[in-house]
């Protein structure tokens, strides 16, 4: 069954507003990866977090990995129309090699 849950499923914001998507796992993750998929495109890697409590920033994007390594978040400050797409988190469980993807959060930004 689904082991990595992601919320919200959809988010519609006005350009300039902030956006956050959350990722939760029922079990401890070895790492967490975030991907962005533009409409009609394929997932593109954004970042990987490995350490407990890790925070990484990429310009307006801030990624966090929880202390217990069971949850993560992606926060976008002052969204732009170029941020439109679906954001997926993916976690590697300690057992097996499958990378478990969340169902994604689809972000729509209107100018």
């Amino acid at each position, binding site marked *: 069954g689904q082991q990595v849950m992601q919320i919200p499923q959809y988010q519609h914001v006005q350009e300039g507003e902030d956006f956050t998507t959350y990722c939760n796992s029922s079990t401890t993750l070895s790492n967490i*990866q975030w991907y962005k998929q533009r409409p009609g495109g394929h997932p*593109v890697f954004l970042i990987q977090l*490995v350490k*407990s409590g890790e925070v990484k920033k990429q310009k307006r994007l801030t990624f966090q990995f929880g202390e217990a390594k069971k949850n993560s978040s992606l926060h976008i400050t002052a969204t732009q129309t170029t941020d439109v797409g679906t954001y*997926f988190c993916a976690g590697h469980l300690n057992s097996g090699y499958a990378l478990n*993807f969340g169902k994604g959060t689809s972000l729509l930004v209107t100018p």
Partner: protein
Amino acid sequence: GAGVSQSPSNKVTEKGKDVELRCDPISGHTALYWYRQRLGQGLEFLIYFQGNSAPDKSGLPSDRFSAERTGESVSTLTIQRTQQEDSAVYLCASSLGEFLAGDGRHSLDTQYFGPGTRLTVL
């Protein structure tokens, strides 16, 4: 350098026919993954190859699905006796494989995705 390529980009087939999808990973990437993405859904893991190790087939939905990989090169995903519910985009990804994380644990390197094959079963 060249990214992950997949062929065909689109495939339309009739129910009951077999299809074969191809993936060319990035040169030097030892790990290769196949995923399925149904319309509007997330990515569903199918199978994972790592070097010469036995593949992790835990995600294959039925025995109609199989995949092969020769060494660290091309992989093919075969779907036999296709059904309408097999309609989806099939994505392939490759990576350098495992690495040692800062806390000493093994972790998996980032994955680079191909453009996908859109399969439609009529």
